[in-house]
């Protein structure tokens, strides 16, 4: 049997209703509709509650004091710049205002630069590094130049004069992967007519406010903000320091050929890892400029004689694309540039593709060709055995068996 609760009539309140109405808080104490939100429902607190409250406030004050003290006395380790703190997860963290450099390859790299770069009165700034992916952050507009020479990493640091922060020497150290690339990039940025100082492991020269060096795969530019005696003294300090600290390696075979065998000035030798003479197929080309300033002799190492002849044929076709037949002499077909009238041609001698570019006339072209043909005869054929598989470079698809080399020596 169900029980039914009696519902009191609104107009005739029951005794139970009266009791309920007596238990209700007064209107101004209604919890749901507190008009004054700050008003306490209790008129007093117990002494225990007061003590607990004071203890909590004291604890908070202690925490505040501790934070303030720690802020004034930081842990020195947090501010150190040890290498293990700088390199985390393949990212090179850089302090200061210099752009943040990150590892393009995901590898961490410590700088090959020595630590004692600054003379007294100078301060070394923070070093930054740049990889393939973020080189543009540092040298947007010229990044492609270094990338064309096998760019792998740029290490950058500024050395600032204490008395005048506007006086500075910026060191840019490019790791270009091979000595041939480093020398090629160096040759491309060297002022015409500059004679580099050549050692067994690299080249270099001081050009007014700037020091240029190659050591092995490294190409270094130390750029002074001006030509003041202070800047020149700092550059003079840097030169032997960097020459001795950067790992060198013997000059590539192309330099041995042109400088050692043919007597060219080292400053006349150039190396193009790709697109020599604007030909897509012409990779890893060593060249040297004759004294007339225009005629170039060039050489490319290939795997064998057949490869050398195929590549020579490509050069001939390339020259013909903007020239006309100029006859056969010295064993090769010569091409006359239809715009400027210079003579170019290419042939093969063993595994070497050799040639002459931009000679003023046929007679001097044949003479230059004869000299390089004779010189490559003294090269060690084992060099050609070191030539890796052909792979890069446009135009190779047209002559699949025309080998090219990659990498330096």
């Amino acid at each position, binding site marked *: 049997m169900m029980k039914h609760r009696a519902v009191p009539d609104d107009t005739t309140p029951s005794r139970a209703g009266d009791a309920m109405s007596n238990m209700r808080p007064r209107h101004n104490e209604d919890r749901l509709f507190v008009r004054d939100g700050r008003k306490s429902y209790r008129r007093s607190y117990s002494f225990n509650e007061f003590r607990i409250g004071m203890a909590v406030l004291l604890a908070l004050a202690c925490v505040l004091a501790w934070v303030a003290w720690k802020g004034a006395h930081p842990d020195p380790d947090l501010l150190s710049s040890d290498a293990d703190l700088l390199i985390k997860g393949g990212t090179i963290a850089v302090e200061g205002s210099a752009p943040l450099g990150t590892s393009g390859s995901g590898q961490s790299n410590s700088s090959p630069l020595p630590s004692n770069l600054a003379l007294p009165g100078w301060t070394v700034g923070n070093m930054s590094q740049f990889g393939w992916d973020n080189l543009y952050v540092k040298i947007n507009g*010229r990044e492609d130049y270094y990338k064309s020479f096998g760019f792998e990493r740029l290490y950058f640091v500024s050395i600032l004069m204490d008395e005048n922060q506007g006086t500075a020497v910026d060191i840019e150290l490019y790791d270009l992967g091979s000595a041939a690339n480093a020398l090629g990039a160096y040759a491309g940025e060297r002022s015409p007519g500059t004679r580099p100082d050549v050692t067994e492991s690299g080249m270099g020269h001081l050009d007014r406010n700037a020091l240029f060096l190659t050591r092995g795969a490294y190409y270094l530019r130390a*750029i002074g903000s001006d030509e003041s005696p202070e800047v020149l003294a700092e550059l003079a300090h840097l030169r032997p320091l960097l020459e001795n600290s950067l790992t060198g390696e013997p000059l590539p075979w192309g330099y041995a050929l042109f400088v050692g065998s043919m007597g060219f000035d080292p400053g006349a030798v150039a190396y193009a890892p790709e697109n020599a003479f604007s030909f897509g197929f012409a990779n890893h080309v060593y060249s040297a400029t004759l004294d007339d300033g225009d005629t170039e002799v060039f050489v490319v190492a290939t795997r064998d004689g057949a490869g050398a002849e195929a590549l020579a044929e490509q050069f001939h076709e390339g020259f013909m694309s903007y020239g006309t037949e100029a006859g056969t002499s010295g064993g090769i077909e010569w091409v006359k540039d239809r715009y400027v009238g210079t003579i170019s041609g290419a042939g093969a001698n063993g595994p070497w593709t050799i040639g002459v570019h931009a000679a003023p006339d046929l007679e001097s072209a044949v003479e230059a060709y004869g000299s390089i043909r004779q010189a490559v005869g003294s090269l060690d054929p084992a060099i050609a055995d070191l030539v890796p598989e052909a792979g890069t470079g446009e135009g190779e698809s047209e002559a699949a068996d025309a080998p090219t080399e990659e990498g330096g020596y």
Partner: protein
Amino acid sequence: MPQDHKRIERRAFLKKAGTAGALALGAGWASLAPPNWLFSLRDPDGERGKPRKEVIRLPENGFAVEPSATLPVLGVARGQNLDAMVRASIDAIGGISRFVSSGDIVVIKPNVAFERSAALGATSNPVVLASLIRIVREAGAREIRVADNPIESPESCFQRSGIRQAAVEAGARIYLPTPADFDTLNVPGATWIEEWPFFWRPFIGADKVIGVAPVKDHNLCRASMTTKNWYGLLGGRRNQFHQDIHGIISDLALMMKPTFVLLDGSRVLFRSGPTGGSLADVREGHTIVASTDSLAADAFGWEELLGRGDEELPDYFAQVAARGLGNPDWRSVTIKDRQVG
């Protein structure tokens, strides 16, 4: 219990039924009609529902003043005194009062791309900039803003190049870029930058814009002068534009129509540009060019300052000219060439 059904009048029923039917029809139309029909809310690919991107535009005719049939387009000043040369070059194309009015807010855009000292020629000459600021102030400009978005750290570039000190001392206000200062700029007709992040904050309320660019060799586009200078107002990953360097320079000419430009030929970085580094790559140019035609100024710089008149002009000259944004044949425009000091 008695039924409490309310009787409804026929007329009222029809009204309500009609209203309900119209609403259903309207809702059906809005949801099912093709997207391009009137009142359609249909969004089959979700594109219409995306928030609209805020885009900004520069004034349709840029910041250029009315062209003059009588005044020279190129004002060339040669000499040793840079301050006098800047004044003379501007005077040659009509004087500063032709371009700047009292109360104007003027944005000056130097090239501060690299952290190099001014002597190395990779950035605008601070002496030239200071002279220009003083001349603009004398014309009554209310505010002069110097702004650039350098390749390297902005603070370091402005400091090392001497631009910061020169601008502040001459009375200009420097705007260094922060991410919040960029907005998407709409450049109608542009190939690469139809909508692209732009260093916008300095241009808020600006009345006039003046470019001050050095004369530089450039590894990719062969020459960087007044037109290429606007590249420094772009944000985002702008290095990708180097894939079509001539195309982007053409877009830059479309993007910015300045009041006038100053080609700073005080120094010429004639090789190893745009970064340079060796003083051996820099020669004194002793020339300042003011022009209302950026392309004509650049063509003058290519031939007279870089000394490459025997070579073909870089491709971007033809592209900009094809858009009707300049005249690459500088000899065909009116020139006032003066020796000063």
